[in-house]
């Protein structure tokens, strides 16, 4: 009796598990049809369909059957890219009075991974994690500030005694899946203490540093990028007006090229003070492109310079970079820079983090950190975002039903 029941159970199991898969194909939870896919990690640049099951990308191929999908999005008018990765953000971290919530700013811009750039240090990172990171749909990663209390104002941020490489490295080791490196920023004294302690913490934790730096007598910029930073370390805000990246004739300084050859990385970090058309334009003309495009989004930069991801990307597009170059520097490059190569791709089997972008054509103005304007004819806009397999932003209702065809809903019809 028991044995018979076991056999029946086995037969049922076989029927449930194997028989259907031989006869009927997999049901896609979401199918993005016919979009122009730009996926630099996989060298894809053309029309493909993307099928999602659960939270993963199952297939990327032309002509996947719409009849097999629960939800179909016609993306024929749009570009499809890996979810964007913004490696310089500030989202409501404890101790920092920067006041932006992640999801309404990140996901609406196609940013599925945002890296907080040192808002918190080892003393208050866990509070930030509990209060914000754990509750965000956006994947939030972090650079840990070398200052124990993080961006808590000049008094703390200039205090070398607050910079404890061992304590910082211990916190990184505790959260290796969230903390990607060490940040140093806003350090005023004309010494190398902040940079060197950040590098020390990065060495101890086998991570990288991101540096927000401006030169002072005795603290030269060329020494930063040629001597103090290691290959793989990042200088953010490199278009800043206090950075001597150009000579008097607007020629890119030789040490910029040399540092790049060494493997030092240059990140935009737009912010309210660090992106100037008068600096970026000549650098781009000479072929000095950013390794990563990022926003330094916070409550000031989001207003006039409009430092969100799609606007920042659009600025580079209109300064002459190709769409492919812009996408590469907003997806696969930042993923590799922060040593998360599993992100920033549309590989089959990858987590389904996807941005659907519209390339608008028209007459647009863009404002930089100096509040000067550039006129451009193209502007990127995020119309739909998939995060972890779910549609979390759909401004044009591409995945939604028209109310007149929805049948009775609510108490009325």
């Amino acid at each position, binding site marked *: 009796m028991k044995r018979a029941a076991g056999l029946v159970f086995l037969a049922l199991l076989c029927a449930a598990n194997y028989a259907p898969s031989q006869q009927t194909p997999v049901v896609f939870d979401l199918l993005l049809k016919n979009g122009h896919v730009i996926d630099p990690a996989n060298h894809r640049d053309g029309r493909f369909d993307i099928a999602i099951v659960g939270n993963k990308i199952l297939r990327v191929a032309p002509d996947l059957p719409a009849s097999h999908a629960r939800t179909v999005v016609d993306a024929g008018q749009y570009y499809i890219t890996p979810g964007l990765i913004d490696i310089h953000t500030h989202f409501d971290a404890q101790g920092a009075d920067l006041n932006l919530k992640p999801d309404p700013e990140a996901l609406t811009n196609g940013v599925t991974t945002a890296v907080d750039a040192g808002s918190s240090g080892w003393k208050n990172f866990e509070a930030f994690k509990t209060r914000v990171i754990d509750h965000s749909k956006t994947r939030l990663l972090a650079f840990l500030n070398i200052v124990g209390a993080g961006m808590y104002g000049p008094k703390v941020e200039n205090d070398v005694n607050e910079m404890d490489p061992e304590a910082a490295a211990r916190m990184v080791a505790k959260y290796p899946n969230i903390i990607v490196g060490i940040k140093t920023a806003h350090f005023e004294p004309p010494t190398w203490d902040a940079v060197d302690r950040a590098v020390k913490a990065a060495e101890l934790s086998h991570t990288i540093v991101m540096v927000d730096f401006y030169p002072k007598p005795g603290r030269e910029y060329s020494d930063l990028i040629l001597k103090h930073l290691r290959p793989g370390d990042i200088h953010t805000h490199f278009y800043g007006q206090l950075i001597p990246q150009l000579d008097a004739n607007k020629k890119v300084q030789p040490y910029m090229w040399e540092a790049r050859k060494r493997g030092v990385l240059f990140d935009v970090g737009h912010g309210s003070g660090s992106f100037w058309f008068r600096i970026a334009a000549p650098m781009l003309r000479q072929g000095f492109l950013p390794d990563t495009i990022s926003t330094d989004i916070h409550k000031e930069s989001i207003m006039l310079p409009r430092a969100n991801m799609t606007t920042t990307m659009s600025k580079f597009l209109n300064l002459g970079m190709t769409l492919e170059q812009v996408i590469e520097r907003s997806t696969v490059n930042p993923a590799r820079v922060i040593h998360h190569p599993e992100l920033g791709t549309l590989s089959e089997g990858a987590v389904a983090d996807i941005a659907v972008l519209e390339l608008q054509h028209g007459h647009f103005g863009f404002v930089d950190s100096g509040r000067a304007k550039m006129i451009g004819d193209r502007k990127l806009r995020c119309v739909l975002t998939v995060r972890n397999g779910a549609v979390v932003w759909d401004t044009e*209702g591409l995945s939604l039903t*028209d*109310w007149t065809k929805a049948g009775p809903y*609510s108490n009325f019809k």
Partner: protein
Amino acid sequence: MSRVLLFLLLAGVLPAQTYDLLLQGGHVIDPANQIDRVMDVAISGNKIARVAEHIPSQDARKTVDVSGLYVTPGLIDLHAHVFGYEGSLFPDDTSLVAGTTTVVDAGGSGWRTFDEFRRTIITKSQTRVLVLINIVGWGMKGPRYENDTNDMDSTATANKIKQNRDVIVGIKTAHFGGTGWTAIDRAVAAGRMADVPIMVDDHIFTNSGRTTREKLLDHLRPGDMHTHMYNDRQVELIDRFTGKVQSYMWEARRRGVLFDMGHGAGSFLWPVATKAMAQGFAPDTISTDLHGESIMMQQPDMPNCITKMMSLGMRLQDAILRSTVNPAKNIHRFPELGTLSSGAVADVAVLTLRTGVFALKDAWAKKRMATEKLENVMTVRNGKIVYDVNGLGFPLWTSAGDYGRIP
């Protein structure tokens, strides 16, 4: 010395740029002053100086060409969440970007938490933040607190209002899951003591012991507001069998009870709003109930809510009235707010009416396609340009030389 200079200026001896900012050539909609045509708006310091035809640009330090755009008083969102509520947002990036220069926080704080609200958010925002204080002492802290009638203290609430009249403009009752009239009646009692209106968010459910008719005709006073008017659980606006607007709705409106949109994630339904608008039952005030959830799906910022009402037949001019003058009146801040009158604080929205095909989404994530969409492109708050998506107010970088921060 300075007195001499002032005299020379006044006497017109020195060539003076009278205005700091001039918005030139826009279509001004200023319902309080019955203006609905192309006019120039001149601003001095943080005040509106003059609205007139053809104000010369040499009279202004900065002139912005806003031709082809609409210029309105800064929008007033009567139902926002910027403190206390789980889904509350920060002001500025969710308000000023949308042309909203004044938000009214609808019940996030109670008398126990208001001081923290003022310290952490109100004083740190560029947006003007006004407050409907929750009748619950702990504010919108969750069901356990919001259902506790023992924490609904009319006297303590009224006292907090009297001490903070600069920002508290009324009382909110919301999310009450108990039976009977305690929440609403205590809010009204506090409203009487402090002489302010109340705003009601009140689910009517089986055995709640409450009906829409009694609520609107017996419990609310003229000048009190019911928000979430276009959902189907709070006010039974439409008779579900006949499809007609209930007679008590018209009666309540005649009594002076006010109806607020409060869009949110759950309170704007096409089947309800379409029927109501077809019969002329429009909201007195257009408001967003913008919070962490609604901002991601329905995106009901003020221009989006206005666009939705326009898709149901409301004229832009009428929608602006219900987004500026009416909310200001309902919280007793008119004509101080909601106008472009000379001497008023210079809070201004510059809006564009785009044509195309746009999806507008309701509480059930059902879309309605529209061919017009209102968007904010520039916001002036307290006389300063705080948002300017296309850089209308700023010079081209190629002609700005070795520029620093341009004012």
